[in-house]
């Protein structure tokens, strides 16, 4: 149907260069793109694919340190590369608008929402200030924001993340542009919040018949939003097709591998024999900061060779649980048992042996590895400290650990963390934990900062190591897809309380606790009709419609 409509944006052979290490490298290598009026194009790819760069180039904009070096960008008959800066500026915000990934960072903290809303229309001479104010309230209402008459008079820090993202979409709409660039608008949000933002964005784009470029790395999300999808890899186009064709019959291997990513599943483990002492047992723990209780009377067990996934949205207390177990935050009440004996609440009072047995792998490998230490020291230090290895034995152990995490020792042993990719850094985090030869490892969102294919590799590695060394894992995550693929047991947390816990097989089968229901139903599926069906179901009172998600 879109083929018959007027063409709005044509990009031909777009080339963009980025500056690093004192020279220009091409980061977008000849991409073509055609967008019709009212059409929504999904741009997907992993980090480094150049999706955001292309999105900004559609506005004739290049970030500092980047430059558009070749090709043409034609927006409704205007050549954006040849147009003067003043002319381009006049288009931005007025005819082409932008919605950023983090609304919290992209709203100016010094001004109220409505002032920022009105700035575009008033500066572009589209509306008077009074009109803009009335218009803002109207759009806030259409974006289903609570208290639309009043919310604009708040400062950004007084509004929750999901609401800010909707307010930002409203702001982008303020001049009724022909085209909006959405740059990962829901990536930073919790799943339950994501649904609300997605449906609000989709509604408003339809209502005003606005064309959009929707940039994301999440296939299931883009399936709900886009008419057609373009897949990018390292600055080049892999393929483009309309959404249903792309989902059902991708032609390129890379696309197929992206589609297949969520296939890894850990084989079902037999139930633990009754009466077995768990490796780690959290018993009636209440903990918090200051007078605030972040955890309220939580209990669960973790057995050898088992993975317990602790799931919850932001503020659910899952990371605080990890801090209590490691002894960084002594609990107010309750205790943590290790192989049946209570651990001292404060890590400073724990013995070397107790510290050795419980290791931790962090979410951000960047901040978890000392940038000034080479891998030899990073991995070798725990082995040296706990196991007393020295000299040749230590060197051999480090090489063995590197082989375990599938990195070539000769090539890697003297590297600095800055000379590694994201996935490799995370592997070093794993090797450091293994070096202590522990029984128990806490994995804190270890895959959430990684691209899907890389994350998949890490999960497989963790699985393999668990079998090899009889490890017990506590896996903290907000991503239910990860839970499905690796957990044996699941603990669902909300606002410091364990809502539901049990074996994975039970957890993913009804009946659920209403919050679990909400959480599970909110995970986008790779079906273009999923969002419609879900909203219908919720309107009818199902799919966890009775409870509130996080962040609102």
């Amino acid at each position, binding site marked *: 149907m879109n083929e018959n409509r007027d063409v709005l944006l044509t990009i031909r052979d777009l080339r963009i260069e980025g500056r690093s290490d004192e020279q220009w490298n091409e980061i977008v290598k000849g991409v073509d793109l055609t967008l019709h009026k009212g059409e929504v194009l999904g741009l997907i790819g992993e980090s480094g694919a150049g999706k955001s760069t292309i999105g*900004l180039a559609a*506005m004739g*904009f290049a*970030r*500092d340190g980047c430059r558009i070096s070749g090709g043409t960008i034609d927006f409704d008959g205007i050549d954006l590369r040849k147009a003067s800066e003043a002319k381009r*500026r*006049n*288009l*931005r*915000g*007025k005819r082409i*608008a*932008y919605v*950023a990934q*983090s609304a919290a*960072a*992209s*709203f*100016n*903290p*010094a*001004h109220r929402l409505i002032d920022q809303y009105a*700035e*575009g229309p008033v*500066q*572009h001479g589209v509306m008077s200030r009074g009109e803009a104010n009335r218009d803002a309230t109207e759009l806030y209402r259409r974006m289903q924001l609570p208290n639309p008459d009043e919310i604009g008079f*708040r*400062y950004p*820090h*007084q509004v929750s993340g999901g609401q800010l993202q909707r307010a930002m979409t409203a702001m982008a709409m303020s001049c009724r542009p022909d085209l909006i660039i959405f740059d990962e608008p829901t990536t930073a949000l919790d799943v339950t919040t994501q649904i609300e933002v997605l449906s609000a964005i989709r509604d408003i784009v339809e209502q005003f018949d606005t064309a959009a470029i929707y940039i994301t790395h999440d296939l299931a999300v883009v399936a709900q939003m886009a008419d057609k999808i373009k897949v990018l890899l390292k600055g080049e186009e892999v393929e483009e097709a309309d959404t249903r064709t792309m989902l059902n019959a991708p032609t390129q291997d890379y696309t197929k591998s992206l589609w297949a990513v969520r296939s890894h599943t850990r084989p079902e483990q037999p139930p633990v024999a009754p009466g077995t002492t768990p490796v780690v047992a959290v018993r009636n723990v209440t903990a918090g900061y200051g007078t605030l209780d972040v955890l309220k009377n939580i209990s669960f067990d973790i057995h050898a060779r088992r993975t317990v996934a602790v799931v919850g949205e932001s503020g659910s207390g899952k990371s605080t649980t990890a801090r209590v177990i490691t002894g960084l935050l002594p609990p107010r009440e309750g205790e943590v048992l290790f192989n049946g004996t209570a651990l001292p609440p404060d890590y400073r009072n724990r013995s070397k042996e107790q510290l050795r047995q419980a290791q931790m792998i962090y979410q951000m490998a960047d901040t978890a590895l000392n940038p000034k230490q080479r891998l030899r020291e990073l991995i070798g230090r725990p082995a040296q400290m706990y196991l007393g290895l020295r000299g040749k034995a230590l060197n051999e152990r480090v090489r063995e650990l590197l082989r375990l995490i599938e990195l070539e020792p000769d090539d890697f042993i003297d590297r600095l963390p800055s000379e590694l990719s994201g996935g490799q850094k995370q592997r070093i985090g794993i090797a450091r934990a293994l070096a202590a030869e522990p029984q128990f490892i806490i994995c804190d969102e270890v895959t959430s900062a990684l691209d899907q294919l890389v994350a998949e590799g890490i999960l497989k590695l963790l699985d393999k190591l668990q079998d090899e060394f009889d490890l017990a894992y506590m896996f903290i995550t907000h991503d239910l897809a990860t839970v499905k693929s690796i957990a044996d047991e699941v603990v669902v947390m909300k606002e410091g309380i364990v809502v539901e816990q049990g074996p994975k097989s039970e957890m993913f089968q009804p009946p659920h606790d209403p919050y679990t229901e909400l959480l599970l139903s909110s995970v986008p599926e790779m079906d273009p009709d999923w969002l419609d069906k879900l909203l219908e179901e919720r309107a009818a009172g199902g799919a966890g419609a009775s409870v509130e998600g996080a962040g609102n």
Partner: protein
Amino acid sequence: MSHILKMIAQRLALGLVTLFVVSLIIALGTELLPGDFAQERLGQSATPETVAALRAQLGLDQPFHIRYLTWLRDIVTSGDFGVSLANGNPVTEQISERLRYTLWLAFYAAAISVPLSLTLGILAALFRNSFFDRFANASALTSISFPEFFVAYILIFLLAGAGGVFPSMVNFRTDPTFSEYLYRAFLPAITLTLVVTAHMMRMTRAAIINLLASPYIEMARLKGIKPMRVVLRHALPNALAPIINVIALNLAYLITGVVVVEVVFVYPGLGQLMVDSVRVRDMPVVQGVALIFAAAYVLLNLTADVLATLSNPRLVHKR
């Protein structure tokens, strides 16, 4: 609003406590003076009686805490800083007139340098990496690095002396009128201006440029806002806290750091008095001047703190 008042009250209380501790440190000065001060002042030939009389007069025969409390009480209740050891005149009398001149000079220099440095800093941020920016930056760095007396003597060399226009020594023997004052104090004021303007300009530029990489600035640019407005409306309000702090720091410097400039131009301010008193170890005067300087410094930092707090909507408008 009440939490803001509470925060300000807390800062005020903290400022008072700091001032109290500072006064204690300053007062401890006499205690730590090596040797018997009275003996030293009167020389070897003094009889024990006269030494004892002087000790009693200076209160040196009292224990420290009594002396300290008396000293503090006199200052707080009647502004009495005691008597100079060098000439026996009341310290308050010597200080008050010179304080007026020092403040005058500080106002003079501030009136020129604050608007000038803000404008230059904003322009440098706006045209960053242009020739203007690089030139302004290099000159600012140069002028920060110069010792004050170097700047002062260059100015004297160029503008005073043989065929010069302005007086190289400030003479207030006759009470000057306002325009006379501006003329006579021109060189010291310009010297100070050069020194502090560079610093404030660089900090203003840095504070703004720091923010230019933030997502909300990119957002403003993507809304099609003009560069000038991006800097003034989107970057500047968020850069206020560091800018206010650096202004306060430099204003404090104008009051307390003028010692060298006052000596070069023989300007009859507090700094000059302090240096003269240090030379002859006239403790009551040194203490008095130091206390006034410290008070001015604490007060300015306090004001800056409060203003910086008020400029932050996160602190003013609670959730």
